[in-house]
C-alpha cells in the first residue's frame, strides 16, 4: 500500500505542474484573446489558396 506514497506525490506533481502551467500561461497573456485564434486556424495555406485560385481562373 505504501505505493500511494509514490502515486500521490506523482499525481500532485502532475496536477500542480499543470496548474502552474495554467497560471504561467494565463499571466503571459495566452488567454487574453480567446476569439481570433479560433478563426486563424481556418486561414488556408498560401499554396493551396493559390492553387484554388488558379483552378477558378
Amino acid at each position, binding site marked *: *500500500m*505504501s*505505493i*500511494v*506514497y*509514490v*502515486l500521490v*506525490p*506523482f*499525481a500532485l*506533481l*502532475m*496536477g500542480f*505542474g*499543470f*496548474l502552474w*502551467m*495554467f497560471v*504561467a*500561461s494565463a*499571466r*503571459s*497573456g*495566452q*488567454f487574453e*484573446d*480567446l*476569439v*481570433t*485564434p*479560433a*478563426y*486563424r*486556424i*481556418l486561414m488556408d*495555406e*498560401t*499554396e*493551396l489558396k493559390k*492553387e484554388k485560385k488558379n483552378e477558378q481562373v
Partner: protein
Amino acid sequence: MSKSDSQMEHMETFHYDDEIVKRFTLVTLLWGLVAFLVGLYVALEMAFHQLNFGISFITFGRLRPLHTNAAIFAFAGNAIFAGIYYSAQRVLKTRMFSDKLSKFHFWGWQAIIVAAALTLPLGLTQGKEYAELEWPIDLMIAVVWVAFGINLIGTVIQRRVKHIYVAVWFYIATFVTVAILHVVNSVSIPVSLFKSYSAYAGVSDALVQWWYGHNAVAFFLTTPFLGLMYYFIPKAVNRPVYSYRLSVVHFWTLVFIYIWAGPHHLLNSAVPDWAQTVGMAFSVMLWIPSWGGMINGLLTIRGAWDKLRTDPVVKFLALALTFYGMSTFEGPLLSIKSVNELGHYTDWIIAHVHSGALGWNGFLSFGMIYFLVPVLWRTELYSKRLANLHFWTGTIGILLYVISMYTAGITQGMMWREVNAEGALAYPDFVQTVIRIVPLYAIRALGGAVYLGGFVVMIYNILKTIQLAPKAEKQETRDEFPRFVQKSFFSELSEAKSFSHRMLEGMPMILTVLAVVAISIGSVISLAPMVATNAMVQPNYDKELNRPYTPLQLAGRDIYVREGCYTCHSQMIRKTVGDVLRYGQESRIEDSMYDHPFQWGSRRIGPDLAREGKRYNHLWHYRHMKDPREVVAGSVMPTYPWLYKDKVDFGSLQKRISAMKTLGVPYSDEEVVNAETNARSEAEAILKDLSADGVTHAKVEHEIIALIAYLQKLGQRGGQ
C-alpha cells in the same frame, strides 16, 4: 512590444513536412487492419473455442494482448501522430522542428509495433494490461517517445504565432503524461532478455497499473483525440470552434481531474476504501468537462448541418463526438460502486471500451483520414458513396457490438449474484453463466466483422484516391507568415522584462525541463517500493501459511502469466455478497503480497481463481487443462496441449527466485541455492499423485506439473 511589432511586418516563406503525415496516415490503415483482424479473431475464439486449435501462438490469452496493443498503440497511435504532425505545423505556422527526429519517430514506432507483434504471440509478456511488452521494448518506447516530445516541443518553441492553439495544449499534455506513466509503470527487474518481474507486488502493482491504465486511456485515447477534434472539426465545417473559451476550460479541467480517477478500476477490491472513494469522486466529476467538450464540438457543427448530410468527413466526426459523449457518461456511471458491482468483470466493460475505441477513436480517425488524404495528395476523394457506405457499415457494426455486449454483460452480472429462496446461488456452476452468453459472442463477432468490412471499403477508397491523384513533382505545402520573435528562456530571464512576457517565451522550455525532472524523480522514487516490499504489508497471521511461492509454483506462475490466463480469469474476490458466496472469503492484501506482477485481472470470462487451490485434485486440473470440455461441458476455455510436451527450465529457477529475493520476497539464501532441487522434488510428489490416479505419460519436467503446483497454491495463504 513595439519592437516585436515592427519585426512582425516581415513575411517569411516556409514549407510543411507533408511526407511524414502521409506516412503516418498510410500505416494507420495498415495497422488498423491488423488490429481489427486480430480483434475479430479473438471474438470468434470466444464464440467458437475450437478456433484456438490448441496452437500456443494463437490462443486467446496470447492474442488478446496483441489485439489491444495493436488497436491502442499501432492504430490509434499512428492516427494521432498523423493528425498531430499535420495540425501542429499548421497552427504553429512552422515546419516540424527536425525532419530527422520525425523520421526516427516514425521508423522507431513501427519497429516497436513489429516487435510487439512478434513477441506477444510467443508469450513474452509482463502480464500487465496494456503494458504487456517486455522490458527491451519498453526501453525502445521510452526513447522513441522522448524523440517525439523533443520534436513537438521544439516545434512549439520555433512557432511563428504567439498564441498556442488549444489543440497543441492537448498534444503537449499527452506527451508529458504518457512519458511519466510509462516510466513509472514499467519499472521491473529483468531475469533474462525477454523475462522480467514487475518491481511492485500485489496491491501496489494494482494501484500503479491502473493509475497507468486509466491515464493511458485518458492521455493516449482522449487528450490527443480531443486536440485533433478541436482542429479537424472547425476545418471540416470551416467555422471556428463554437466557444474557444470553453475549449480552454475543457482542457484545464480535464488534465486536473483525470489523473485521480484510476482507482475506479479497483472498486470493491482489497484496495483501501478511501482510495476507492477518491477514485469514484473524481470519476464522477470528470463527466462535466467531458460533456462540455462534446457539446462544444457538436455546436461547432451547428449552422453547417447541411454538411452533416453531404460530407462524409463531418458525419464521421459528429458521430465520433456522440460516442465520446456516450462513453464519458457511462464511465462515471460505472465508477459508482453499486453500478460497478454489477458491471465489473463482465462484458459491460467490453461494450464500454468499444463504444470508446470503435466509435470515438475509430470514427474520429476515419473522419480525419478522409479529410487529410485529399488535401495531402491534392485531389478529391475517389468516392463519396463508398465513404457513406463505410459510415453506415461502421455504425451498424458498432451497434451490433455494443448492444450484444451490454446484454451479455448485464445478463451475466445478474446471474452471478442471483440467489434463490434458500439464500444459495441460483447458478452455482460458473459455466451456466457462460453458456447463456455464448450466442451473444457470435453476434459481437458479426458486429466486428461488419465494422471491419467498412474499414476495408475505406482502405480501397483511400488507395484509389491516391492512385488517381495527379503526380506532382514536389508536394510540400508552402505557406507564408511573419516571424514572431522568440527569445530563449534564459536570455529573457536576464532582461528586465515583465514577468508574464518572460514566462510565455519560456513555456516550452520549462515544460520540457519539468517533464525531465518529473521522470527522473519518478525513476528514483519508484525504486523505493522495490526495497521496501516487506515493510509494505504486515501479515498479522500465520507466518507458516504465508510462505512465498516455492520454485515450482513460481515456475507455474510464470506459465500462467505467459499464457495470459489473466485475460479470462480474475484473482480478486470482491467484498460483495455474490463474490463471497461463489468464491469464498474476500481477497486480502496479504493474498497477493508476493505477486510480481499482480494478476487480479479485469474480466471474468472464466471464474475467479483467487482461492482455486485445493478445490479440485491434481488429476482434475491435469484433465481440465488438456481439454476443459472433458470435465466441464460447455466450457469455452482453450485447450493447452503444449503444456504436456514443453519442459520447465529448472536451471533458470535459481535466477528467478533470486530476482524475487532482490524485490523483497523473503527467500532464504538456502532456498535460492536449492531452487532446482526443491522444484524437482515437489514435481515428483505431484507426479506420484497423478500416477496413482492413473496418469501414465506425464514427466517431472512437463509444464503442466508446475502449473498445477501454482493453481493448488492459490488462496492457500492466510485468509481461510
